[in-house]
């Protein structure tokens, strides 16, 4: 069961990254795209066991690294950080749609900021770009919009146990 769930989860992240690189090269309202891979990792962190979630986040992030322009390992590290924080907050006594959406927004912002810091440390010069703030916050807003279908999809595919931090 465990390996099957992990493989399905990995498939979801890979599919999200592939959709990100194809569909959202055309649909970019205001010039920004959602962070679909990160959103899928956030959703999966709600439903998977901690070790599984971290493994899926790292591997999924590494796949995103392979299809992006930055040094390998940056998205892997970023997704791992996001999954770890999501794991830490998922069992808190927070419930209801607003809390989940706020969580998605906050985690995406944290993820984008983490990547920006790591990218800048590794020579990508992200933080001093003119539209840096937009790159951090607008994808987080789009992730909020896409949160419900992604949470539903992950819920029906990885069959979670009951949690308090549910959509």
């Amino acid at each position, binding site marked *: 069961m465990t390996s099957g769930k992990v493989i399905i989860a990995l498939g979801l992240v890979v599919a999200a990254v592939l959709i990100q690189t194809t569909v959202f090269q055309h*649909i970019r309202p205001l010039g920004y795209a959602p962070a679909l891979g990160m959103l899928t990792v956030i959703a999966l962190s709600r439903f998977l066991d901690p070790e599984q979630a971290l493994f899926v986040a790292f591997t999924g992030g590494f796949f995103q690294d392979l299809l992006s*322009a930055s040094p390998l*390992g940056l998205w892997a*590290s970023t997704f791992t950080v996001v999954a770890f924080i999501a794991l830490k907050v998922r069992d808190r006594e927070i419930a209801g749609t607003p809390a989940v959406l706020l969580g998605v927004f906050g985690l995406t912002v944290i993820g984008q900021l983490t990547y920006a810091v790591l990218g800048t440390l590794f020579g990508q*010069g992200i933080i001093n770009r003119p539209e840096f703030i937009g790159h951090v916050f607008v994808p987080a807003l789009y992730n909020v919009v896409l949160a419900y279908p992604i949470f539903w999809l992950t819920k029906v595919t990885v069959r979670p146990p009951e949690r308090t931090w549910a959509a």
Partner: protein
Amino acid sequence: MFPSGRRLDRSTALFITLLAVGFLIATFDVRSSGDSVTTVIRGGAQTLAAPIQEAIDLVVRPAVGFVDGISNVAGLSDQNERLEGEVRRLEQRLLETSALERRVAELEAINDLAPPEDLATVTARIYSAGASTFDQIRLINRGSDNGIVVGQAVVDEDGLIGRIDLVTKSSARVRLITDPLVSVGVRVQDTNHTGVVTGRGDDLLRLDMFDATEPVREGAVVLTDGSLFPPGIVVGFADETKSADVGFALRVTVDPAAAFSQLDFVKVVVGWSPLDADVEDRDPLVKAPSFTEPRLGGA
């Protein structure tokens, strides 16, 4: 075990381990260059993902084109107004440019900087963008099998798009000129002064000139100077009129000629060799352009 005696739980230990692995991989990738193992892995992943990405792109392209059109309706009015102003401005400029064209033609003849009209090109379709909103890359469906190698210029009907920085047998990655890691040697058509255009990570470019004895006028055409890209390709248009305040150093914002949000088909200039150019690049992923080097994913 923490100093306090509290044991590190398994997920935290795994988190720290994965983070360390991620940092190690990133460090190794940055430190390595050329045909390193990370470049080969990246090329392999690109090769594997390309058919799926192309299939998704072909399926969703009509639908997303429709959705994209709707989402852009709000901006069409502003765009129309801006374009009308642009047309008026260009009509005025047209009257001025004939004399300038003659001058430029003479200078090009003297400097052997002929526009790249007769250069061999390979037409390619863009099927994928970068995996994140920070990425300034596009993937095209032509690779080393079509004569594409790292370092070649990529253009469309409007002007310079970017530069090939990763090649597999059937696909290639284009790093756009809007990427802060890409610099282009340019000259301003009006004055023939040279400078360097660098990406800013957004929709605009930055032109740095170090010997600007004359002001750069708004709308001035900025062309490649032939140092790393073929000469005479339109890079963009100066966004403002500006003259050097101190000395001859001048920084001007440039509007790219190409519309990067609407890229579909592009041309890779395969008939021009940058072998004599200064191939030093700040991006460790970008290999020195060469027509003889081994190609990633090749036999």
